[in-house]
């Protein structure tokens, strides 16, 4: 069989075997590229729900051979209308496992490793193994977590440019009903999730007293049952939205409440929607957003075309509307920004370090509190914490940071920059002079 002539995907070959006008400067078309994509590229798909199923299928059909998928959920009957990799007999099984198996059955040669696990339960290094992370999630919380992990791998050069080999690209998709978005996040280059957190409006929360006294619609009745009545009846037992009996109880109570106030419209699915903050998912929206994400992934990897810069909004509610926006980075973003480079001797104590921040021309930071991945190092207030942490002041910062040559640390306090007192917090890149970068565990523990 001749690999160049016979390809599973003629259309893919058109992108990867021919030159073009809008390609990345490093693009080198040819069969080697196609083989390298199979051989060397490892992608993690986060989420195996509506979007995740689509993503997994799209990526497998786009010539990627090494895929992993992570999801903590099990298949429910209500998933079956759009999560097309699942069948009735799969109900109750882990989504990641069934999704991986189904795609492998249909797309020959693809290797998919499923992880039936919470994203927080994986070691950080697990995520570093992948070249690209594709997100098919429905929660801000999970996106923020993965964003933090991916940006955590990012390192900067001395001139504040990102080190290209430490950039962990993310492709993020999201849908809500007929609306959706696809975006490319290159930490250090394009805005990270945290830079543009305002894109997600805070969820509407009804005042508790309205729920208790003057409910006006079905959602008020449901939230009353969920937030107030549940605690009143189930002393100390917390509500779990994934337990059907709990949901049924809230629904029954909401109905009772609605009858009392003559309010129509409480249904079981509305109850689920309000309590879990779900907006009905539309299969076609998932398919469209996922295809955009898979294409961006292929573009990032191969350079066969310029990537999306950097956010695609899609609205298929009435007619069809799409718009691409080039959102700016927040340069002092605490998560993806470079922070300020500081070089220190390994002997500098925490209290000396805090003094140095006051003098530092880019900081002029007084009364600094300090936090590092290893823990809370120092706080100026409240007294109860200040007292607990005071002992750290006389210890060398090098020891407190786990005796590594370089790491990031966050400080906050009052800055006098621009001649005005202001509350200020920033990331610092601390580099220890003379440290060899290998942690000496014995002394670290002994310290």
């Amino acid at each position: 069989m001749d690999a160049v002539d016979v390809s599973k995907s003629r259309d893919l070959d058109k992108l990867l075997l021919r030159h073009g006008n809008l390609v990345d400067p490093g693009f080198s078309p040819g069969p080697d590229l196609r083989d390298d994509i199979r051989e060397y590229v490892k992608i993690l798909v986060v989420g195996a729900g509506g979007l995740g199923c689509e993503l997994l299928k799209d990526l497998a059909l786009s010539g990627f051979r090494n895929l992993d998928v992570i999801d903590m959920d099990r298949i429910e009957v209500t998933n079956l209308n759009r999560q097309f990799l699942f069948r009735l007999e799969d109900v109750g099984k882990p989504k990641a496992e069934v999704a991986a198996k189904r795609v492998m059955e249909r797309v020959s040669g693809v290797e998919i490793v499923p992880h039936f696990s919470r994203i927080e339960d994986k070691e950080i290094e697990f995520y570093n193994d992948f070249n690209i992370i594709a997100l098919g999630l429905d929660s801000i919380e999970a996106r923020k977590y993965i964003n933090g992990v991916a940006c955590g791998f990012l390192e900067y050069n001395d001139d504040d440019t990102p080190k290209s080999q430490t950039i962990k690209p993310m492709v993020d998709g999201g849908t809500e009903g007929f609306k959706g978005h696809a975006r490319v996040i290159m930490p250090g280059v394009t805005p990270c999730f945290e830079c543009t957190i305002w894109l997600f409006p805070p969820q509407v929360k009804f005042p508790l007293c309205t729920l208790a006294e003057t409910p006006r619609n079905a959602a008020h009745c449901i939230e009353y049952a969920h937030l107030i009545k549940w605690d009143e009846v189930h002393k100390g037992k917390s509500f779990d939205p994934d337990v059907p009996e709990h949901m049924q109880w809230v629904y029954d109570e909401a109905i009772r409440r609605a009858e009392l106030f003559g309010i129509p419209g409480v249904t079981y699915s509305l109850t689920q929607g309000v309590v879990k903050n779900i907006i009905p998912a539309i299969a076609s929206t998932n398919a469209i957003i996922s295809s955009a994400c898979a294409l961006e992934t292929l573009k990032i990897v191969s350079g066969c075309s310029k990537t999306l810069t950097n956010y695609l909004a899609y609205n298929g509610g009435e007619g069809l509307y799409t718009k691409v926006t080039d959102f700016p980075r927040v340069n002092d973003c605490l998560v993806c920004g470079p922070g300020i480079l500081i070089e220190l001797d390994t002997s500098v104590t925490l209290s000396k370090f805090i003094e140095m921040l006051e003098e530092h021309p880019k900081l002029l930071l007084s009364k600094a509190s300090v936090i590092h991945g290893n823990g809370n190092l120092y706080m100026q207030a409240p007294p109860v914490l200040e007292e607990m942490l005071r002992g750290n002041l006389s210890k060398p910062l090098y020891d407190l940071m786990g005796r590594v040559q370089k790491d990031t640390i966050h400080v906050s306090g009052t800055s006098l920059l621009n001649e005005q007192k202001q509350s200020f917090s920033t990331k610092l890149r601390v580099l220890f002079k003379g440290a060899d970068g290998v942690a000496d565990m014995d002394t670290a523990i002994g310290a």
Partner: protein
Amino acid sequence: MIGLFKVKEKQREQAQNATRGGASVKKQSAGELRLHKDISELNLPSSCTISFPNGKDDLMNFEVSIKPDDGYYQNGTFVFTFQVSPVYPHEAPKVKCKTKVYHPNIDLEGNVCLNILREDWKPVLNINTVIYGLFHLFTEPNSEDPLNHDAAAVLRDNPKLFETNVRRAMTGGYVGQTFFPRCI
């Protein structure tokens, strides 16, 4: 980026079983960093104290006790639990009153009706604002936003009786059918 990925794969193979030079400790989330700043800048009235039951490294769960120095609730001690989510300040902290209290805006389960905890929360607000908001509930309980319907009605119609009821509850006793443990 395929060229970069190939280089990385080679490095990865070589580096297998060798430890990494850089740090790969877990980093705090943006929410934890913001909370660290909020708490280090707390400026509480002397009648409020904060404590951290899980120690110095868990700031996401803490307790605030409020001891009002005037008004109906003078000299009572009221403890609130704060649960801060990783998406803070995108979401308000979850606050409950641990002390059973006879109060128009706090129900017997400890739910609190304070606008900035629900419909009026904005990410620019902080823990200090919330604690001052709670403090204010004790100096100015209001019958307009009732969570404890009976207490609100008494406050509105018969402030004298309300005062008596509050005293009785705080010193440990029954108001109507409900027993309130002593908190004074």
